């Protein structure tokens, strides 16, 4: 009982800042959009039916999942060596290295993307370097396409992956790796046969978290996609602010929310199922 009382302020904030607006969004999704775009008060599932029956929605879902899954996988793969480096560092340096790994989170995501646009653009630093060194004769298309979006998304997801991996790897018993070394395994074999299998739950948890973040990403596809990258979040923006079809935008947002909730539940199941992650819950 006391726990509920203590949680009451947070629950009230959650209800006010999330549940209430979401309920309102759901209500808007049941309104009707006329042929000319005006919104009429109604209780209809027309917008949902239109979206579900549209081939382009399926293409958007596929685009979104492919982008998020691949970006999350690359982010986790790049984050693993960083997390291992931090884990293996002396206590004196560990905090500083961990801070450096997640430092991008201290900078606005939009500011980071503007930086990427300057670096990856046709007249950007990388293309200037490549053409200056004679490696390429013209600018490589590193932005305003899927490549640019993937680069930006991986960079923005990596700090989250590092955080999750640090939490997971921090609970691995180093004596197991020492035992492997004692029994004659070299470092590569120890990593492949001991560290990596034990880190699998943390890797999966990191991938699932970054997958969820990737699915809901909006700024990166919008700024780095050059109008060529269509994902669920950009479509919601277009429906809301270009065609002003609020019921359609709200319905698509509700479908996206439902998908994300399903993934979060899956992540919870994974966390509960794997022994490694049960250990995470131990105080």
């Amino acid at each position, binding site marked *: 009982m006391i726990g509920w009382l203590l949680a009451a302020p947070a629950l009230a904030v959650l209800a006010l800042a999330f549940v*209430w*607006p979401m*309920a*309102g*969004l759901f*209500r*808007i999704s049941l*309104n009707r959009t*006329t*042929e*000319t*775009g*005006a*919104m009429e*008060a109604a209780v209809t599932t027309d917008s949902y039916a239109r979206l579900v029956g549209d081939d*382009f929605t399926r293409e958007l879902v596929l685009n979104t999942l492919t982008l998020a899954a691949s970006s999350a996988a690359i982010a986790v793969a790049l984050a693993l060596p960083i997390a291992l480096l931090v884990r293996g560092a002396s206590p004196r340096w560990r905090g500083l290295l961990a801070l450096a790994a997640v430092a991008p989170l201290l900078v606005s995501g939009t500011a980071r993307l503007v930086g990427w*646009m300057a670096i990856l*653009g*046709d*007249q950007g630093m990388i293309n200037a370097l490549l053409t200056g060194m004679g490696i390429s004769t013209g*600018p490589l*298309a590193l932005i*305003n*396409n899927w490549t640019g979006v993937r680069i930006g998304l991986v960079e923005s997801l990596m700090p989250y992956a590092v955080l999750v991996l640090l939490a997971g790897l921090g609970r691995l018993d180093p004596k197991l790796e020492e035992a492997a070394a004692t029994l004659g395994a070299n470092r590569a074999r120890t990593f492949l046969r001991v560290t990596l299998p034990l880190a699998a739950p943390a890797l999966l948890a990191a991938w699932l978290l970054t997958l969820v973040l990737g699915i809901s990403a909006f700024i990166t596809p*919008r*700024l780095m*996609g*050059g*109008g*060529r990258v*269509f994902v669920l979040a950009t479509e919601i923006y*277009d429906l*809301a*602010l*270009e*065609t*002003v079809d*609020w019921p359609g935008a709200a319905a698509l947002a509700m479908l996206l929310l439902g998908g994300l909730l399903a993934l979060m539940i899956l992540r919870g199941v994974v966390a509960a199922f794997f022994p490694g992650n049960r250990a995470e819950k131990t105080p």
Partner: protein
Amino acid sequence: MRIWTSALLGMAGIAAAALPAAAQQSGAMTLMAYAGIFRENYNDVVVKPFQASGAPVQYVEGGTSAQMLGMLRAQKADPQIDVVIMDVTTAALACAEGLVEKMPAAAWPILSQIDPQARAAGGECGPGVMFDHLVMVYDTQAVKPAPTRFMAMADASQRGAVGFAAPPNIQGLAITAILAQAQAQDWRNIGAAMASLKAIAANTQTFDPKPDGYTMILNGQLRFATGWNARAQLYRDQSQGRIGVVLPEEGTIFQINTINVVANAKNRARAAAFVNHALSAEPQKAFTERMFYGPTNTTAQVSPEAMQRTALAPEFRNRVIALDWEEMLKLRDGWNQRWRREVIAAAPR
């Protein structure tokens, strides 16, 4: 429904709504319109002369027209805005949803001075208060001789140097209609425009220029873009001619900004007075000469130099394609899909 909508969208717009609320308390009439250089210039030559008569005006930046519509929807039960200037397509939705007042000619004698096309654009609600039109902008240092047609963007030498917004952005819809008209004398015939659109798309670096085409040209990232005349003319002046502005031979379409009194406005009398002022000849002349939006008041005596930089100049008027935006809105979804599947998909990077 109204409570839900007001609650949800009121939360989203709470920061912006706080300003007009404060203005209401001080007795000022609240005008919502565009930000940036539009605000600076409109404030100087239209709002300040009105305020000189002792009627305070609070100018609220509404972002895009769609964002302004969102604000009006959110405040439907308790409007904090008195007058709104927004583009014709969005204003039509506000009119249909009862968010702005109807303006019968009998109650608004000023309408007799307004261009018929501007009056028709507003339907039963507020009329057009200024004309703008689609233009092509280019880098005068990099593109010689000066281009005269949209199809100059399709030249093979311009690969990767073009930026223009795709539908559902209104500029993408406009250029589609213009190229369809040029090919088939029917702006609705998107099929006739496809070959031209694909040819331009092959050279396109971005279908969503950020922050905008003018800035990307000035930064050397693009050589061609599309834009709206008024802002393009200002950027031309500010860049000492680096940005060139062309009303292409294929034609152009008007993008009309309307002025409306918000339904149930708290300062209704002042709002009506401001709308009358904004539609009158002198402010329209002043704003055209400052920012090159075409005047909708037919009695405005605009200098020939300024008029020359609008689509209302005699030699340009026959290039303006009569486009029914209400009909366009019905075609928009189909065009959007064809653009994505046939134009953008055919222009990978």
